[in-house]
C-alpha cells in the first residue's frame, strides 16, 4: 500500500511543513531541558520514542530527578495529558470504523498541532470521506512525529552548543498564536476563547498544569451557552 503517495497524505504533510520549524524548536528546547535535569542521552532517546508527549515529559522530569513515588509521576503525566482525552472524542467520529490497534495508533500520534489543524480542515465527519480524512491526519501526524524525533537527536548531539539564552523555544509559542487566531472567526469562538483565557489567568497556579484542562472545559461550555442563546434569540 503506497499510502504516502496519495494526494490526501501529501496535503497533510504540506499542512505540517510550516509548523515543522516550531515543532523542531520546541523539541530541541524540551530535550535540552530533559538532558539538563539529569537524563542520559540514551534514556532521553528512549523516553521520546516510548512516550512522545512533550509537555508531560517536561512536567514529570523534576519528579523523576527527585525520586518521587511512581504513582505521583504517572498521575502528573495523566493530568497533563487530560486534554487529549477530550481531543480523542473530537476525532472519534472520523475514525471509529478502524480496527482496535489502528485506533490506538491514531490516538497515540495525535498532537496539539495535528488535532487543531485537523478540526479546522474537517469540522464535520463524513463517512464517505473517511479515508481521505485518515490519510490527511496521518500525513500531519507522521511529519510531527519525525520532526519531533529529529529534534531529540539534535538536542542530544548539539545540545551542549545551543545556549539556552537564545530563547528559540519562543518560536513554538509564536507558532501556536498563528494557529489560535484563524480559529477565532465568529462571536461564539471569540467568547469561547476569551472565557478560556480568563480561566487560564485565574487557574494558572494550580498544580499539574490543571489550568489547561480547566480552560478547555470552560471554553467548550461557553461555546455551548453562546450557541444556545443565539438559537433562542432567533
Amino acid at each position, binding site marked *: 500500500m503506497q499510502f504516502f503517495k496519495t494526494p490526501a497524505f501529501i496535503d497533510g504533510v504540506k499542512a505540517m511543513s*510550516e509548523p515543522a520549524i516550531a515543532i523542531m524548536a520546541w523539541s530541541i528546547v524540551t530535550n535540552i531541558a530533559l538532558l539538563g535535569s539529569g537524563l542520559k542521552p540514551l534514556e532521553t532517546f528512549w523516553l521520546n520514542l516510548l512516550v512522545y508527549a512533550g509537555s508531560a515529559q517536561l512536567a514529570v522530569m523534576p519528579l523523576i530527578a527527585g525520586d518521587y513515588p511512581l504513582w505521583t509521576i504517572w498521575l502528573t503525566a495523566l493530568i497533563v495529558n487530560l486534554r487529549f482525552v477530550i481531543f480523542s*472524542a473530537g476525532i472519534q467520529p472520523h475514525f471509529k470504523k478502524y480496527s482496535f490497534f489502528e485506533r*490506538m495508533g491514531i490516538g497515540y500520534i495525535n498532537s496539539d498541532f495535528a488535532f487543531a489543524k485537523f478540526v479546522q480542515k474537517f469540522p464535520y465527519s463524513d463517512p464517505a470521506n473517511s479515508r481521505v480524512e485518515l490519510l490527511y491526519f496521518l500525513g500531519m501526524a507522521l511529519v510531527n512525529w519525525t520532526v519531533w524525533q529529529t529534534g531529540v537527536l539534535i538536542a542530544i548531539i548539539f545540545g551542549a552548543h545551543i545556549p539556552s539564552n537564545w*530563547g528559540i523555544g519562543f518560536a513554538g509559542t509564536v507558532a501556536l498564536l498563528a494557529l489560535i487566531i484563524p480559529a477565532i472567526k465568529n462571536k461564539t469562538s471569540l467568547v469561547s476563547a476569551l472565557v478560556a483565557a480568563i480561566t487560564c489567568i485565574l487557574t494558572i497556579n494550580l498544580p499539574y498544569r490543571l489550568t*489547561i484542562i480547566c480552560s478547555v472545559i470552560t471554553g467548550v461550555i461557553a*461555546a455551548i451557552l453562546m450557541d444556545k442563546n443565539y438559537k433562542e434569540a432567533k
Partner: protein
Amino acid sequence: MSDIHLWITFFGLMAVTFVTRSFFLLGGSKFNIPETIYEFLRYAPTAALIAIVLPEILFIKDPASQLFEIDLYSPHLFGGVVAIIGYLVTKSLLGTIFLGMVAFTAARYFI
C-alpha cells in the same frame, strides 16, 4: 533512580499516554459521541492552545516560589503582540514566527 526503576517509570508513562490519547477512540463504533457534543468539541483545541500560550506570554515564573506572576513588561509579551499583528498582516506562519522572534530578541536587548 536505578535503571530498572527508570524503565518501569517510562513504560508506565507510555501506558498513560496510550490511554489518555486514545481514550474515546478505544470503544470504536460501539460508542457514539452525541452530535451536539461533537459539534462543540471543535472549540476544545483553541481553548487548550490558549492555556498553553498565555502562561508563556503574559506571565513570568518566580524562580523562588515557582508561581506564575503577571508581567506586562516582558520581551515575551512584546514578541507575542508583534506576532499577532504579524499574523494579521502576513497571514503566514513563517512570517509570524519571523516577526515575533525578531521583536522578542530585540526586546530582550532593550527591556
